[in-house]
Protein backbone atom coordinates (compact mmCIF):
# COMPACT_ATOMS: atom_id res chain seq x y z
CA UNK A 1 0.00 0.00 0.00
CA UNK A 2 1.24 3.46 -0.85
CA UNK A 3 2.40 5.49 2.10
CA UNK A 4 3.38 9.11 1.66
CA UNK A 5 7.02 9.94 2.47
CA UNK A 6 5.92 12.43 5.20
CA UNK A 7 3.83 9.85 7.04
CA UNK A 8 6.71 7.31 7.12
CA UNK A 9 9.04 10.00 8.43
CA UNK A 10 6.51 11.00 11.10
CA UNK A 11 6.06 7.38 12.21
CA UNK A 12 9.82 6.91 12.49
CA UNK A 13 10.12 10.02 14.67
CA UNK A 14 7.30 8.80 16.92
CA UNK A 15 9.01 5.42 17.31
CA UNK A 16 12.29 7.09 18.26
CA UNK A 17 10.50 9.33 20.76
CA UNK A 18 8.86 6.32 22.40
CA UNK A 19 12.21 4.53 22.67
CA UNK A 20 13.79 7.63 24.24
CA UNK A 21 10.91 7.96 26.70
CA UNK A 22 11.25 4.30 27.73
CA UNK A 23 14.98 4.82 28.26
CA UNK A 24 14.30 7.93 30.33
CA UNK A 25 11.72 6.09 32.40
CA UNK A 26 14.20 3.30 33.14
CA UNK A 27 16.90 5.82 34.10
CA UNK A 28 14.45 7.60 36.42
CA UNK A 29 13.43 4.31 38.04
CA UNK A 30 17.12 3.46 38.65
CA UNK A 31 17.73 6.89 40.07
CA UNK A 32 14.73 6.63 42.40
CA UNK A 33 15.83 3.18 43.59
CA UNK A 34 19.27 4.58 44.33
CA UNK A 35 17.83 7.52 46.27
CA UNK A 36 15.59 5.23 48.31
CA UNK A 37 18.54 2.99 49.11
CA UNK A 38 20.61 5.98 50.23
CA UNK A 39 17.72 7.07 52.45
CA UNK A 40 17.48 3.58 53.95
CA UNK A 41 21.20 3.53 54.71
CA UNK A 42 20.99 7.01 56.23
CA UNK A 43 18.08 6.02 58.49
CA UNK A 44 19.83 2.83 59.55
CA UNK A 45 22.98 4.75 60.51
CA UNK A 46 20.93 7.35 62.36
CA UNK A 47 19.14 4.59 64.29
CA UNK A 48 22.45 2.93 65.13
CA UNK A 49 23.95 6.23 66.31
CA UNK A 50 20.94 6.94 68.53
CA UNK A 51 20.96 3.47 70.07
CA UNK A 52 24.78 3.43 70.23
CA UNK A 53 24.59 -0.06 68.79
CA UNK A 54 25.77 -1.19 65.39
CA UNK A 55 25.11 -4.34 63.40
CA UNK A 56 27.99 -6.58 62.36
CA UNK A 57 28.80 -7.65 58.83
CA UNK A 58 27.75 -11.20 58.10
CA UNK A 59 27.58 -13.57 55.21
CA UNK A 60 25.45 -16.66 54.68
CA UNK A 61 26.75 -19.63 52.73
CA UNK A 62 24.27 -22.26 51.69
CA UNK A 63 26.18 -25.55 51.65
CA UNK A 64 24.92 -28.96 50.64
CA UNK A 65 24.23 -30.22 54.15
CA UNK A 66 24.51 -27.14 56.29
CA UNK A 67 23.98 -23.43 56.44
CA UNK A 68 27.14 -21.56 57.32
CA UNK A 69 26.81 -18.13 58.85
CA UNK A 70 29.89 -16.02 59.33
CA UNK A 71 29.70 -12.91 61.50
CA UNK A 72 32.69 -10.59 61.41
CA UNK A 73 33.18 -8.67 64.64
CA UNK A 74 36.70 -7.17 64.67
CA UNK A 75 35.53 -4.25 66.84
CA UNK A 76 34.26 -6.44 69.69
CA UNK A 77 36.30 -6.53 72.88
CA UNK A 78 37.96 -9.84 73.66
CA UNK A 79 35.93 -11.89 76.14
CA UNK A 80 32.67 -9.93 75.81
CA UNK A 81 31.16 -11.74 72.85
CA UNK A 82 27.96 -13.67 73.53
CA UNK A 83 26.40 -16.03 71.03
CA UNK A 84 22.84 -17.15 71.67
CA UNK A 85 21.31 -19.93 69.63
CA UNK A 86 17.55 -20.25 69.64
CA UNK A 87 15.16 -22.50 67.76
CA UNK A 88 14.80 -20.04 64.90
CA UNK A 89 17.66 -17.58 65.16
CA UNK A 90 21.18 -16.78 66.25
CA UNK A 91 22.09 -13.62 68.12
CA UNK A 92 25.65 -12.31 68.33
CA UNK A 93 26.35 -9.50 70.77
CA UNK A 94 29.41 -7.90 72.32
CA UNK A 95 30.92 -4.74 73.75
CA UNK A 96 32.87 -2.47 71.45
CA UNK A 97 36.60 -2.18 72.07
CA UNK A 98 36.74 1.60 71.97
CA UNK A 99 40.52 1.86 71.91
CA UNK A 100 40.74 -0.45 68.94
CA UNK A 101 38.01 1.42 67.07
CA UNK A 102 39.70 4.74 67.78
CA UNK A 103 42.97 3.31 66.51
CA UNK A 104 41.23 2.36 63.29
CA UNK A 105 39.05 5.40 62.76
CA UNK A 106 40.66 8.13 64.81
CA UNK A 107 38.42 10.76 66.29
CA UNK A 108 35.91 10.23 63.51
CA UNK A 109 34.73 7.08 65.31
CA UNK A 110 31.02 7.04 66.16
CA UNK A 111 30.13 6.56 69.80
CA UNK A 112 28.95 3.01 69.52
CA UNK A 113 28.87 0.93 72.69
CA UNK A 114 27.72 -2.44 71.45
CA UNK A 115 27.58 -4.63 68.39
CA UNK A 116 24.49 -6.76 67.93
CA UNK A 117 23.54 -8.99 65.04
CA UNK A 118 20.64 -11.33 64.57
CA UNK A 119 19.96 -13.84 61.83
CA UNK A 120 16.64 -15.61 61.48
CA UNK A 121 16.88 -19.11 59.98
CA UNK A 122 14.50 -20.14 57.21
CA UNK A 123 13.71 -23.29 59.24
CA UNK A 124 13.46 -24.44 62.84
CA UNK A 125 16.53 -26.08 64.31
CA UNK A 126 17.76 -27.91 67.33
CA UNK A 127 20.23 -25.45 68.89
CA UNK A 128 22.31 -28.37 70.20
CA UNK A 129 23.01 -29.50 66.65
CA UNK A 130 24.64 -26.19 65.66
CA UNK A 131 28.39 -25.73 65.90
CA UNK A 132 29.86 -22.37 66.86
CA UNK A 133 33.52 -21.55 66.40
CA UNK A 134 35.47 -18.31 66.70
CA UNK A 135 38.53 -17.75 64.50
CA UNK A 136 40.14 -14.34 64.81
CA UNK A 137 37.47 -11.72 64.29
CA UNK A 138 35.02 -14.16 62.74
CA UNK A 139 32.30 -16.27 64.33
CA UNK A 140 31.33 -19.35 62.33
CA UNK A 141 27.89 -20.82 63.01
CA UNK A 142 27.24 -24.12 61.24
CA UNK A 143 23.67 -25.32 61.24
CA UNK A 144 22.76 -28.72 59.76
CA UNK A 145 19.91 -28.56 57.25
CA UNK A 146 16.66 -30.30 58.04
CA UNK A 147 16.22 -33.71 56.33
Amino acid at each position, binding site marked *: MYEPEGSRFFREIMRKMLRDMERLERALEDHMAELMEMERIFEERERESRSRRSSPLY*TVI*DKERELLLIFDVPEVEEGTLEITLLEDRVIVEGRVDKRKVER*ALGRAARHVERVRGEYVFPFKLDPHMAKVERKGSKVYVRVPKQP
Partner: protein
Amino acid sequence: MEVYEEEIGDFFFREHSRLGRPKFMIVGLPDVGLVGKIATEHIVRSLKLSYKAEVDSYSLLPPVAVARGGEVLAPIRIYGSGDVAALIADIALSPRSAVPLSLAIVEYARIRGIEYLLGLTGAVNFERAEMTKPGVHWVASSEEASRLASGLPEARRVEEGYIVGPYAILLKESVRRRVHSLVLLADSFLDIPDPEAAVVLVSAVSQIIGVEIPVDRLLEEGELIKIRLKELMKDQKSALARMGKGYELHAPLSY
Protein backbone atom coordinates in the same frame (compact mmCIF):
# COMPACT_ATOMS: atom_id res chain seq x y z
CA MET B 1 50.77 25.73 38.00
CA GLU B 2 49.74 23.92 34.85
CA VAL B 3 46.92 21.47 35.42
CA TYR B 4 46.08 18.78 32.91
CA GLU B 5 42.37 18.12 32.73
CA GLU B 6 40.46 15.59 30.73
CA GLU B 7 36.69 15.28 30.59
CA ILE B 8 35.50 11.81 29.64
CA GLY B 9 31.75 11.33 29.61
CA ASP B 10 30.41 12.64 32.90
CA PHE B 11 33.76 12.23 34.69
CA PHE B 12 36.66 14.63 34.83
CA PHE B 13 40.27 13.70 35.52
CA ARG B 14 42.25 16.63 36.92
CA GLU B 15 45.99 16.10 37.37
CA HIS B 16 47.42 18.35 40.06
CA SER B 17 50.94 17.18 39.47
CA ARG B 18 52.39 15.49 36.45
CA LEU B 19 51.41 11.83 36.22
CA GLY B 20 53.96 11.23 33.49
CA ARG B 21 53.47 8.11 31.44
CA PRO B 22 53.29 5.19 33.85
CA LYS B 23 53.55 1.70 32.42
CA PHE B 24 50.98 0.27 34.83
CA MET B 25 47.83 1.68 36.34
CA ILE B 26 46.39 -0.42 39.16
CA VAL B 27 42.63 -0.07 39.59
CA GLY B 28 41.16 -0.79 43.03
CA LEU B 29 37.44 -0.11 42.95
CA PRO B 30 35.11 -1.26 45.75
CA ASP B 31 33.71 -4.65 44.79
CA VAL B 32 33.53 -8.17 46.25
CA GLY B 33 35.10 -8.23 49.75
CA LEU B 34 36.66 -4.81 49.01
CA VAL B 35 39.70 -6.86 48.05
CA GLY B 36 40.84 -4.55 45.23
CA LYS B 37 40.49 -1.45 47.34
CA ILE B 38 42.43 -2.93 50.27
CA ALA B 39 45.22 -4.23 48.01
CA THR B 40 45.54 -1.00 46.01
CA GLU B 41 45.60 1.19 49.11
CA HIS B 42 48.35 -0.99 50.53
CA ILE B 43 50.34 -0.68 47.32
CA VAL B 44 49.94 3.13 47.34
CA ARG B 45 51.20 3.25 50.93
CA SER B 46 54.01 0.74 50.53
CA LEU B 47 55.41 2.23 47.33
CA LYS B 48 54.90 5.75 48.70
CA LEU B 49 52.99 6.78 45.59
CA SER B 50 52.07 10.45 45.66
CA TYR B 51 48.74 12.08 44.97
CA LYS B 52 48.52 13.00 41.30
CA ALA B 53 44.96 13.42 40.15
CA GLU B 54 41.34 13.60 41.19
CA VAL B 55 38.53 11.83 39.41
CA ASP B 56 35.04 13.15 40.01
CA SER B 57 31.57 13.57 38.59
CA TYR B 58 29.04 16.04 39.89
CA SER B 59 26.18 14.21 38.22
CA LEU B 60 26.98 10.56 38.91
CA LEU B 61 28.68 10.50 42.29
CA PRO B 62 27.22 11.67 45.61
CA PRO B 63 28.42 15.16 46.58
CA VAL B 64 31.34 13.96 48.72
CA ALA B 65 34.67 15.64 49.50
CA VAL B 66 37.32 13.83 51.50
CA ALA B 67 39.16 16.00 54.05
CA ARG B 68 42.60 14.63 54.92
CA GLY B 69 45.44 16.45 56.65
CA GLY B 70 43.87 19.82 55.90
CA GLU B 71 43.53 18.99 52.22
CA VAL B 72 40.28 18.61 50.30
CA LEU B 73 40.34 15.55 48.08
CA ALA B 74 37.96 13.95 45.62
CA PRO B 75 36.53 10.54 46.58
CA ILE B 76 38.30 8.89 43.64
CA ARG B 77 42.00 9.59 43.23
CA ILE B 78 45.03 8.58 41.23
CA TYR B 79 48.42 8.18 42.89
CA GLY B 80 51.65 7.54 41.11
CA SER B 81 55.41 7.44 40.94
CA GLY B 82 57.60 6.37 38.03
CA ASP B 83 56.16 3.37 36.22
CA VAL B 84 53.29 2.74 38.59
CA ALA B 85 50.00 4.59 39.06
CA ALA B 86 47.04 3.48 41.15
CA LEU B 87 43.41 4.51 41.22
CA ILE B 88 41.39 4.16 44.42
CA ALA B 89 37.82 5.02 45.38
CA ASP B 90 36.61 5.90 48.87
CA ILE B 91 32.91 5.60 48.15
CA ALA B 92 30.61 2.81 47.10
CA LEU B 93 29.86 2.75 43.40
CA SER B 94 26.25 2.53 42.40
CA PRO B 95 25.29 0.70 39.19
CA ARG B 96 24.59 4.13 37.68
CA SER B 97 28.14 5.34 38.28
CA ALA B 98 30.12 2.09 37.93
CA VAL B 99 29.56 1.72 34.19
CA PRO B 100 30.49 5.28 33.10
CA LEU B 101 33.44 5.28 35.51
CA SER B 102 34.87 2.06 34.08
CA LEU B 103 34.43 3.41 30.55
CA ALA B 104 36.19 6.62 31.54
CA ILE B 105 39.11 4.80 33.19
CA VAL B 106 39.76 2.78 30.03
CA GLU B 107 39.57 5.87 27.84
CA TYR B 108 41.85 7.82 30.20
CA ALA B 109 44.41 4.99 30.09
CA ARG B 110 44.27 5.04 26.30
CA ILE B 111 44.65 8.82 26.04
CA ARG B 112 47.49 8.95 28.60
CA GLY B 113 49.38 6.14 26.93
CA ILE B 114 49.29 3.84 29.96
CA GLU B 115 50.50 0.44 28.76
CA TYR B 116 48.61 -1.82 31.13
CA LEU B 117 45.59 -1.56 33.37
CA LEU B 118 45.77 -3.96 36.31
CA GLY B 119 42.33 -4.42 37.83
CA LEU B 120 42.27 -5.96 41.30
CA THR B 121 39.15 -7.51 42.76
CA GLY B 122 37.62 -10.46 44.58
CA ALA B 123 35.82 -13.51 43.22
CA VAL B 124 33.16 -14.96 45.49
CA ASN B 125 34.17 -18.43 46.58
CA PHE B 126 31.82 -20.31 48.87
CA GLU B 127 34.76 -22.41 50.10
CA ARG B 128 36.66 -19.29 51.19
CA ALA B 129 36.07 -20.05 54.88
CA GLU B 130 37.99 -23.31 54.50
CA MET B 131 40.94 -21.77 52.65
CA THR B 132 44.15 -20.75 54.36
CA LYS B 133 45.51 -19.11 51.23
CA PRO B 134 43.04 -17.78 48.67
CA GLY B 135 43.77 -18.54 45.03
CA VAL B 136 44.40 -15.93 42.32
CA HIS B 137 42.66 -16.03 38.95
CA TRP B 138 42.94 -13.79 35.92
CA VAL B 139 41.17 -12.53 32.83
CA ALA B 140 42.90 -10.47 30.17
CA SER B 141 41.59 -8.21 27.45
CA SER B 142 44.43 -9.00 25.04
CA GLU B 143 47.23 -11.43 24.30
CA GLU B 144 49.74 -8.89 25.50
CA ALA B 145 47.95 -8.43 28.81
CA SER B 146 47.72 -12.19 29.31
CA ARG B 147 51.52 -12.38 28.96
CA LEU B 148 51.75 -10.40 32.21
CA ALA B 149 49.98 -13.27 33.96
CA SER B 150 52.42 -15.84 32.59
CA GLY B 151 54.84 -14.76 35.30
CA LEU B 152 52.37 -15.81 37.97
CA PRO B 153 52.76 -19.60 38.27
CA GLU B 154 50.09 -19.93 40.96
CA ALA B 155 47.45 -17.88 39.15
CA ARG B 156 44.91 -19.57 36.94
CA ARG B 157 43.14 -18.25 33.90
CA VAL B 158 39.37 -18.01 34.23
CA GLU B 159 37.91 -20.49 31.77
CA GLU B 160 34.22 -19.84 32.20
CA GLY B 161 31.69 -17.85 34.21
CA TYR B 162 30.26 -14.40 34.63
CA ILE B 163 32.07 -11.31 35.81
CA VAL B 164 29.64 -8.66 36.95
CA GLY B 165 30.30 -5.06 37.90
CA PRO B 166 32.88 -2.39 37.11
CA TYR B 167 35.60 -4.86 36.11
CA ALA B 168 33.29 -6.49 33.57
CA ILE B 169 32.91 -3.14 31.83
CA LEU B 170 36.62 -2.41 32.18
CA LEU B 171 37.44 -5.66 30.39
CA LYS B 172 34.85 -5.32 27.63
CA GLU B 173 35.73 -1.72 26.93
CA SER B 174 39.44 -2.57 26.94
CA VAL B 175 38.82 -5.15 24.22
CA ARG B 176 36.89 -2.56 22.17
CA ARG B 177 39.48 0.17 22.59
CA ARG B 178 42.51 -2.12 22.39
CA VAL B 179 43.73 -1.29 25.86
CA HIS B 180 45.76 -4.05 27.54
CA SER B 181 43.95 -4.89 30.76
CA LEU B 182 44.56 -7.71 33.16
CA VAL B 183 42.05 -8.30 35.93
CA LEU B 184 43.30 -10.33 38.88
CA LEU B 185 40.67 -11.92 41.12
CA ALA B 186 41.34 -13.45 44.53
CA ASP B 187 39.00 -15.96 46.19
CA SER B 188 37.05 -13.92 48.65
CA PHE B 189 34.04 -13.54 50.90
CA LEU B 190 31.28 -11.62 49.15
CA ASP B 191 30.33 -9.12 51.82
CA ILE B 192 33.05 -9.18 54.47
CA PRO B 193 36.23 -7.17 53.82
CA ASP B 194 38.96 -9.70 53.08
CA PRO B 195 42.53 -8.45 53.77
CA GLU B 196 43.94 -11.99 53.44
CA ALA B 197 42.65 -12.11 49.86
CA ALA B 198 44.20 -8.68 49.27
CA VAL B 199 47.58 -10.08 50.37
CA VAL B 200 47.66 -12.60 47.52
CA LEU B 201 46.82 -9.87 45.01
CA VAL B 202 49.56 -7.59 46.33
CA SER B 203 52.05 -10.44 45.91
CA ALA B 204 50.83 -11.02 42.34
CA VAL B 205 51.15 -7.32 41.47
CA SER B 206 54.59 -7.28 43.03
CA GLN B 207 55.69 -10.04 40.63
CA ILE B 208 54.15 -8.32 37.61
CA ILE B 209 55.68 -4.90 38.19
CA GLY B 210 58.96 -6.32 39.44
CA VAL B 211 58.99 -4.36 42.69
CA GLU B 212 58.95 -5.99 46.10
CA ILE B 213 55.94 -4.99 48.18
CA PRO B 214 55.98 -6.22 51.78
CA VAL B 215 52.66 -7.53 53.07
CA ASP B 216 53.36 -7.95 56.79
CA ARG B 217 51.68 -4.69 57.71
CA LEU B 218 48.59 -5.61 55.74
CA LEU B 219 48.30 -8.85 57.70
CA GLU B 220 49.04 -7.20 61.04
CA GLU B 221 46.50 -4.45 60.50
CA GLY B 222 43.83 -6.72 58.99
CA GLU B 223 41.36 -6.16 61.83
CA LEU B 224 41.82 -2.38 61.86
CA ILE B 225 41.30 -2.30 58.10
CA LYS B 226 38.08 -4.25 58.52
CA ILE B 227 36.81 -1.82 61.16
CA ARG B 228 37.67 1.08 58.86
CA LEU B 229 35.87 -0.45 55.89
CA LYS B 230 32.81 -1.88 57.61
CA GLU B 231 30.41 0.88 56.58
CA LEU B 232 31.76 1.03 53.02
CA MET B 233 31.21 -2.72 52.76
CA LYS B 234 27.58 -2.29 53.84
CA ASP B 235 27.07 0.43 51.20
CA GLN B 236 28.80 -1.58 48.49
CA LYS B 237 26.90 -4.77 49.38
CA SER B 238 23.60 -3.15 48.55
CA ALA B 239 25.07 -1.72 45.32
CA LEU B 240 26.45 -5.13 44.34
CA ALA B 241 23.00 -6.67 44.58
CA ARG B 242 21.56 -3.94 42.35
CA MET B 243 24.43 -4.36 39.89
CA GLY B 244 23.29 -7.91 39.19
CA LYS B 245 26.05 -9.65 41.16
CA GLY B 246 23.60 -12.52 41.46
CA TYR B 247 24.67 -13.64 37.97
CA GLU B 248 28.19 -14.18 39.27
CA LEU B 249 26.88 -16.30 42.13
CA HIS B 250 24.59 -18.26 39.83
CA ALA B 251 27.46 -19.21 37.50
CA PRO B 252 30.65 -18.96 39.54
CA LEU B 253 33.94 -18.59 37.72
CA SER B 254 35.69 -21.83 36.81
CA TYR B 255 39.42 -22.03 36.39
